[in-house]
């Protein structure tokens, strides 16, 4: 790690002002992505602004048909929260298969979506559920927020404060774990909104990051059942390929994970 200056912010405003004062600052949440990268000397922020102690970034609220998870909430707290389990059990399940216990005790929903790793789990949930990302400046729809590999709509120094999810009629998430990292080799989140709309998002599959899967959405809209997807064919073109999975394999996983997510949806 290169030398850096550590700050612990006590409010979002303070974090923003600290950011403005330093030359090349980075916000620190769970550190599960940022710190390994710094240790490998692949990132060298002049200042690290820790968001971990900011009270207003902590907590989960269920109000009517909206579940709001504050950006600094760790996966473990999401996984074990009664409101999450009641309103959107698929999110509790997603967090339970995210990384390993160490990652779940430190990593945060805000850090995950700010990072927008093409194999991260949460982006699929946000996109499929039609969630809204709240920042210190504005509200951004999931569609607009995720802009490709490791790229988001966030501006320099903008802080995610919360994510709000409309509570769906049904939702499910299934993931094939990457054998080494435990990220999603491919994961598919399926959701049926209360108004009957069907949204399906896949992560870990596309070369351009989290994506909707219109063919599966159409099939499920006609018939919400795993077998409805039997006839769908997913093209391998544009899909990721690496030593753990060819593009054809990932195309297959999009379909198979979608079927299993539908079967598991509640």
């Amino acid at each position, binding site marked *: *790690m*290169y030398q850096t200056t550590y700050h612990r912010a006590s409010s979002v405003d303070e974090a923003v002002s600290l950011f403005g004062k330093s030359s090349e600052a980075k916000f620190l949440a769970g550190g599960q992505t940022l710190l390994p990268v710094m240790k*490998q*000397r692949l990132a060298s922020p002049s200042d690290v602004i820790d968001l971990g102690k900011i009270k207003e970034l902590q907590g989960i609220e269920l109000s009517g048909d909206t579940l709001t998870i504050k950006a600094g909430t760790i996966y473990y707290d999401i996984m074990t929260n009664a409101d999450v389990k009641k309103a959107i059990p698929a999110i509790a399940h997603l967090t339970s298969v995210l990384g390993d216990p160490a990652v779940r005790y430190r990593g945060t929903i805000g850090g995950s979506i700010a990072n927008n790793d093409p194999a991260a789990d949460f982006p699929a949930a946000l996109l499929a559920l039609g969630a809204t990302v709240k920042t210190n400046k504005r509200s951004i729809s999931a569609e607009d927020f995720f802009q490709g590999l490791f790229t988001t709509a966030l501006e320099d120094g903008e802080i995610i404060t919360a994510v709000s999810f409309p509570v769906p009629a049904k939702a499910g998430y299934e993931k*094939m774990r990457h*054998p*080494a*990292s435990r990220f999603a*080799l491919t994961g598919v989140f399926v959701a049926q909104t209360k108004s009957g709309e069907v949204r399906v998002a896949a992560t870990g599959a596309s070369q351009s990051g989290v994506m909707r899967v219109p063919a599966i959405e159409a099939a499920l809209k006609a018939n919400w059942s795993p077998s409805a997807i039997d006839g769908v064919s997913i093209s391998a073109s544009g899909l990721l390929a690496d*030593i*753990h*999975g*060819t593009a*054809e*394999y990932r195309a*297959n*996983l999009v379909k*198979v994970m979608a*079927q*299993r997510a539908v079967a598991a949806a509640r």
Partner: protein
Amino acid sequence: MGVEGIGASVVRKEDKRFITGKGRYVDDIKLLGMTHAHFIRSPHAHAKVKGIDSSAALNMPGVVAVLTGQQIVDDKVGNLICGWAITSKDGSPMKMGAWPAMAPETVRFVGQAVAVVIAETKNLARDAAEAVVVNYEELPAVADIHAAIKSGAPQLHPEAPGNQVYDWVIGDEGATDAAFAKAANVVKLDVTNNRLAPNAMEPRAAIADYDAAEEHFTLYTTSQNPHVARLVLSAFYNIAPEHKLRVIAPDVGGGFGSKIFIYPEEMVALWASKKVGRPVKWTGDRTEAFLTDAHGRDHVTHAEMAFDAQNKILGLKVKTYANFGAYMSLFSSSVPTYLYATLLSGQYNIPAIHAEVVGVYTNTTPVDAYRGAGRPEASYLIERLMETAARQLKVDPAQLRRSNFITQFPHQTPVIMAYDTGDFNASLDAAMKAIDYAGFPARKAQAKSQGKLRGIGVSCYIEACGIAPSKAVGSLGAGVGLWESAEVRVNPVGTIEILTGSHSHGQGHETTFCQLVAERLGVPISQVSIVHGDTDKVQFGMGTYGSRSAAVGLTAILKAMEKMEAKAKKIAAHALEASEADIVIENGEFKVTGTDKAIALPMVALAAYTAHNLPDGMEPGLKESAFYDPTNFTFPAGTYICELEVDPGTGKTSFVNFVAADDFGRLINPMIVEGQVHGGLVQGIGQALLEHAIYDANGQPVTASFMDYAMPRADDVPSFNLSHTTTLCPGNPLGIKGCGEAGAIGASAAVINAITDAIGKNNLEMPATPDRVWRTIHAA
């Protein structure tokens, strides 16, 4: 046996310090005035070093020196050696490409060091290393075995035309051809044994401390064999004569073979310590471990097995290409030859065997012994062949094995090894019973009704351990003898110190070796301590690998104990005014048999050291030593059976059951044996399902972190069902065969045999990743 004697599952003495974080590893050691080394490593798989500009780095804060490959060559530090000479079939010696500790001219794998920065702290060394400018001229590289032996392939070493290290043969080619000529059936198989990165929990580390006044070096290092390190550093690398070099291997966090070898980093640390006049420390990080710890396996093999009409094996032909990486590591040459091809008879009566092994250089990390070393490759090949044969001949795979088992011992195989004892039917029976082999078809049908493909796979392994009879290995080209030494010191108060040349880096010697003393003397193990890992304390030793520490190292201790006991009995007899022949040792006392006369061990010890009343002519003291050289290898063997399910939608494998029935001869501590088997099985399963050290076509490593290299984790492996069938090893007095490598040797074939059974396709390479299994299921 007593509560702490042989056969007791005594809790490990060493675990208190390991579990409470009080272990003392090389990196925990801090010396006064210590500096820190950071290596500058090649980012290229093959390149010429055109120049190194360290001027900017030398001006950076805390920098003590920047030293280069040219300097280490100029100072006449020796090139790295390979300690086992292999002769090709044309009679020529193996072709050794020169391997200097840092490359002065040419780099041949990513990660090879070209220079080192010595600085006040680790971070300052790393900062300065970034300011060293190395000018490389890239050369074409080759990483794949087949590509390396093609004509026109990039050439690594002028000494080795065609990138060939050797072309070695074993067995009787004429007899094998004759056997094939009369075969009713021939079974053919091509297999790849995937390259593995060893990944001991503790990365390698070294601290070198040169004392200019004494012209003496001390090296603290992560070694499985500190005496061998000293020998090699002295005799071949010109570091210092042996009496001026002390090597200490303190607590070492796992080795699996990778810490047998003497690496460039230790050599450079020693040399640099003298150059800068201060202690030099280097602790590798995980990336350096992936790049520079000797890898394992990496074979490509074609094999054919001939059967008669009654399904008896007539002969075996094997051709193997072994990838050695860019240089020949310390014992690498022996791994695909004498540690591999000599085990190709497996558990079977095979009248004729012929094997040819071609060693190949590639622009990859050097390959050497890794848990099992050659024997996993042999066992995997034979057991995949037997399964393939059963499928082709349409016979039950267990039955095909049984009808070809060796049942008479001793048994001379056609490939050097003479098996001393065993009962292969017993372990097969035990494993089949444990897994309910007969009930499998019903379970398979049940699984099918739930959309799952269920398979069962058998693996009957044999290995040669207790490495090794010195004369035998000497005649085969080994540069060392493979005996072990021990010393028993009884202190004047009766406590006991055992000095051993074996080295514990996870095996539990501090417990098991004490158990022998407890067994023989009836003293609690708390009164015994084990001293190892320091060349100033223990006179000599060959270290720990090849499942040799109990069979060879503990036997040496037994021999020293016997000498000590004989002297102690004389002292006791003298004190008790009895005949020496009437003295027995029980519960820490020397008793006159049939009487209540006795003298406790501390009194005997005290008598030995006060020397006030010893038998006439007896030397004072109670200390004996012994060297033990085994007369043969030992032959642990057993059967592993794996039952699993494959998810046809994803290709993912889930274990249903895994049974292991091993014959290790006598067990000293069954709990520790169980742990060794668990660890070995996990490594074997890791190879079968997850692990693969991959290079791209240009020699760039693709799997140099745990985010890409899949190490097995607890939830990747099943609970194991272990049992033992025992035939005592006749070759050593304790009847021990060894247990350290069996799991890693036998497990992978059981897994692949089970998956291929499940999916109904025979050809499947390791690691059987979900992607690969899925593609195999759906391949036309």
